[in-house]
């Protein structure tokens, strides 16, 4: 090995703590990149492979009752490759040992053989025997949450009749990777599941012999999806079709896609911060090292080394740091990516998991990591190459200070000289102070931006659970019912308030733009479920016209005052041109509202309800639950208290882990910046600080000069850190918002406080760590040798 390379290795070893501090910051950036892109890629691959193997459909439709005879006609629609018709219905369950009612979606299996599309994967046991009418398979998560295993039985109300069903197997389906009850906000595996049942008993229970109400299509490669959907809608319209849709409106796929998009956004937003900070750190440390090694550089040049060789020597040092950081990031990213992918499978159920982060994410992150350190080193390294040997061998001239605004400040505030030393050092090297401030500000920004996600979730939760949905229970009715259903519900045990609600599927079109959605009839006297505007005030319904959610208005390219065509996908199945009265931001979902009288006038019918929102006296809940389990008109129950608890439990569980991970990222940046700044300070000023000790200053007083400067810079970093945090939060809010969930840009004061505190405390710890080295300085010798 060449002597110069040996020097390189020894330098790396001697500066290990500083190098490690930089490598850790760099490693964080590389890790986030590998983690996010690796997880996204793995999930995408898993999803695609699963969709492919299970023949997941591309177009979906439901109808009230469609005769099987039209199936050949559907199959002839240009672009349709495969058709799967089945029977689907919602049922209320009475599970052994569970007081509360659970609900399920029943799906029929074909009379013979496997379904062509959306094939269930059997995880345990088997599919029902086609000859047995009481056998069913259950979605795995629901069965597991309720301890149901093959051979066990439970009761369900099928078409008003209570039936005993026997479990034969546990299955997963590409249709229900993310399983969430209609109208709910959160998966609740204990109270909602899917039941696969043989065709004949399902048809009998639903009263659909010779007919179907659920349709899935797979398209040919050259199919035009909107055209297929339009043709299908046309065919199903006479049979109560509620509008066909593609995967983009399929609930499970929509949630999964949102998640993948968010991972992609994470890979774009976070890593650059870490990479930029590490570039600055490399620049800071290398500049200092080159200054310290001027005589050596001079000597090397005098002995005939070229500027290039010397530049390369220092560049290798930074590349060494880069390699360390990239390796750290790769290992951490690979490991955490696996953990994260695993975590996803708790909410997204796949029968298998392909964890393949992909060489691309390693290659890209590695190149970016090395690129950052090389860029950071460039300026310092160029300076080393340009040094003239004769000048290099002279000691650097002493820093020249000048009087400036600091003096006026000092006089006014009667500052002590040690404080003056701090202020003068900052004003003498504003560039270096700026790097320190920027680095700490970056750490604070990352912390604010990471904690912000919890604030926004809290805001969404608060809006969804305490301000919008204030009911305890929602009952879904099997069919539209007259408003007298409200009185019937009021007679259920313990019910203290009933508010009916009515929703109808519609297709909104404007020019070539079109969207399938649900219109809700709003009655301003309703207080349980409310519609809130951007400021959180209860919005009153305009007497005519639609209230559109912002995302939908953008999709249809329409503003308040504009007009859209609304096609009712329920009788009378007519189209109307309706004005858009108002556009409003919605955090969750995409619901269109209209004043109840206006809607029923359009539908040319009296008021009806298909959902009932209730308040129930908690002491009478057991009786209430028992009654609901046996109410034939009810085919779904949402228990909002449970959803709320489930939501909080999930958030809290994820919160603890995430806060820890994010806090560590912020702490690492702060420590990386402050530790390096402190070491550089110490190496430059050891002599000066030792002089203070000789003059009789205590360790604490001398430490104040070193630590005080860094802490002052940390304090200065707080305002830009908050500002940057707000900016990053805005980016995240925009980047992470999807059709399903919009992330409001809400940052709690507590978030700022915690972010500032974490940065301050870790900066203090890093500075104090370096301060301890002052104790080891031998006063007698420190004064004899000038650096």
């Amino acid at each position, binding site marked *: 090995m060449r002597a110069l390379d040996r020097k390189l290795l020894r330098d790396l070893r001697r500066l290990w703590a500083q190098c490690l501090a930089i490598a850790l910051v760099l490693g964080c950036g590389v890790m986030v990149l590998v983690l996010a892109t690796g997880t996204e890629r793995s999930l995408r691959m898993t999803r695609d492979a699963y969709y492919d193997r299970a023949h997941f459909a591309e177009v979906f439709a439901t109808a009230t009752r469609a005769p099987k005879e039209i199936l050949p006609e559907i199959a002839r629609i240009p672009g349709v490759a495969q058709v799967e018709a089945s029977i689907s219905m919602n049922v209320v369950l009475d599970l052994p040992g569970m007081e509360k009612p659970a609900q399920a979606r029943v799906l029929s299996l074909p009379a013979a053989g496997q379904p062509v599309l959306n094939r269930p994967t059997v995880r345990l046991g088997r599919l029902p025997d086609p000859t047995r009418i009481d056998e069913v398979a259950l979605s795995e998560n629901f069965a597991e949450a309720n301890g149901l295993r093959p051979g066990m039985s439970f009761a369900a109300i099928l078409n008003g009749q209570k039936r005993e069903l026997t479990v034969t197997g546990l299955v997963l389906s590409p249709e229900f990777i993310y399983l969430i009850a209609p109208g709910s906000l959160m998966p609740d595996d204990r109270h909602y599941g899917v039941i696969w049942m043989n065709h004949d008993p399902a048809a009998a229970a639903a009263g659909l012999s010779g007919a179907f109400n659920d349709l899935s299509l797979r398209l040919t490669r050259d199919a035009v999806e909107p055209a297929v959907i339009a043709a299908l809608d046309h065919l199903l319209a006479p049979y109560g079709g509620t509008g066909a849709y593609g995967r983009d409106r399929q609930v499970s796929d929509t949630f999964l896609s949102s998640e993948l998009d968010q991972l992609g956004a994470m890979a774009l937003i976070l890593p650059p911060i870490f990479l930029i900070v590490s570039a600055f750190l490399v620049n800071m440390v290398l500049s200092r090292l080159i200054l310290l090694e001027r005589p050596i550089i001079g000597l090397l040049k005098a002995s005939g080394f070229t500027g290039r060789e010397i530049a390369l020597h220092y560049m290798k040092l930074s590349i060494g740091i880069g390699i360390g950081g990239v390796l750290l990031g790769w290992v951490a990213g690979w490991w955490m990516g696996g953990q994260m992918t695993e975590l996803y499978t708790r909410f997204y159920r796949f029968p298998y998991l392909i964890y393949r982060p992909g060489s691309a994410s390693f290659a890209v992150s590695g190149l970016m990591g090395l690129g950052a350190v090389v860029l950071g080193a460039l300026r310092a390294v160029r300076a080393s190459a340009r040094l003239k040997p004769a000048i290099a061998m002279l000691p650097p*001239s*002493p*820093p*020249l*200070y*000048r*009087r400036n605004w600091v003096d006026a400040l000092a006089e006014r505030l009667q500052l*002590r*000289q*040690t404080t*003056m*030393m701090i202020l*003068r*050092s900052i004003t*003498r090297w504003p560039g270096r102070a700026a790097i320190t401030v920027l680095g700490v500000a970056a750490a604070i920004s990352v912390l604010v931006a990471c904690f912000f996600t919890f604030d926004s979730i809290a805001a969404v939760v608060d809006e969804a659970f305490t301000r919008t949905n204030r009911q305890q229970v929602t009952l879904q009715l099997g069919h539209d019912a007259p408003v007298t259903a409200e009185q019937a519900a009021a007679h259920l045990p313990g019910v203290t308030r009933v508010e009916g609600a009515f929703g109808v599927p519609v297709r909104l079109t404007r020019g070539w733009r079109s969207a399938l959605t649900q219109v809700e009839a709003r009655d301003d006297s309703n207080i349980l479920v409310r519609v809130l505007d951007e400021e959180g005030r209860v919005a009153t319904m305009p007497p005519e016209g639609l209230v559109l959610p912002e995302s939908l208005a953008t999709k249809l390219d329409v503003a308040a005052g504009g007009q859209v065509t609304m096609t009712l996908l329920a009788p009378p199945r007519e189209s109307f041109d309706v004005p858009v009265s108002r556009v409003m931001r919605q955090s969750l979902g995409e619901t269109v509202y209209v004043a109840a009288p206006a809607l029923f006038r359009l539908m040319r019918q009296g008021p009806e309800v298909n959902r009932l929102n209730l308040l129930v006296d908690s002491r009478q809940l057991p009786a209430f639950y028992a009654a609901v389990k046996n109410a034939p008109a009810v085919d779904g129950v949402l228990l909002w208290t449970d959803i709320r608890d489930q939501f909080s439990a999930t958030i809290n569980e994820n919160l603890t882990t995430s806060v820890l991970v994010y806090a560590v990222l912020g702490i690492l940046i702060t420590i990386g910046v402050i530790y390096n700044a402190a070491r550089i300070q110490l190496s430059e000023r050891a*002599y*000066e600080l030792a*002089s*203070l*000790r*000789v*003059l*009789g*200053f*205590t*360790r604490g*007083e001398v430490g104040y000069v070193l630590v005080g400067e860094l802490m002052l810079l940390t304090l200065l970093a707080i305002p830009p850190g908050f500002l940057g945090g707000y900016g990053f939060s805005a980016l995240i809010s925009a980047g992470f918002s999807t059709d399903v969930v919009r992330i409001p840009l809400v940052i709690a004061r507590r978030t700022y406080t915690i972010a500032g505190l974490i940065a301050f405390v870790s900066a203090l710890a890093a500075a104090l760590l370096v301060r301890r080295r002052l104790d080891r300085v*031998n*006063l*007698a010798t420190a*004064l004899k040798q*000038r650096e």
Partner: protein
Amino acid sequence: MPPAIAFRVEDLSKTYTTGAVSVQALRGVNLELFDGELVVLLGASGSGKSTLLNILGALDSPTGGRVFFREHELTRMSEKALTAFRREHVGFVFQFYNLVPSLTARENVALVTEIAMHPMRPEEALERVGLGGRMDHFPAELSGGEQQRVAIARAIAKRPEVLLCDEPTGALDSKTGVTVLEALYEVNRDLGTVTALITHNAAIRQMAHRVIRLADGLVVAVEENTERIEPAGIEW
């Protein structure tokens, strides 16, 4: 009445160990310094002058023996007490000035007066060493002699009982060196500060009350000057 003893050094030894090499810098030094006297320590390089001075000033601790400052035994004091001793009683002047480059001359002196019990004003200290007109200059804007005089002003500003100077003229030419020596001479004369001054330069011994010669870590001779010469009369 003979002057009181300021420092008493008994059987002082100091061994430096670096790796496998041990160097005995002091090998049983016995010595007394009296109030108000100006002592010059002479000796070749490696004779132990600086080690002795550093131990007197509580910058270093001995390997053996005892050091008393008046009735206090320095060799039994804690780190904290030694810091306090330096802070209250000792002024230092070094060959390389040791000024804080980010502070002006006045501020360098104020650095000490802010933590001292009964200091003089920084301006007074600087005037005493003839720098009344350069108070607001930074070290980088002062000549070597001026920087050293700032260091002396900083050392005396707290009215120390002891002034320890390690080669204060070592980095200066003869003419500048004399101005520095004058400052030290006057401080000793006017304030009665016990002053110990290390030098290589034998000519300087003429300004001392006593001259102590060291060789190989031992005191080899103590001479009393019957006739002192003021710095202005010294040439080298």
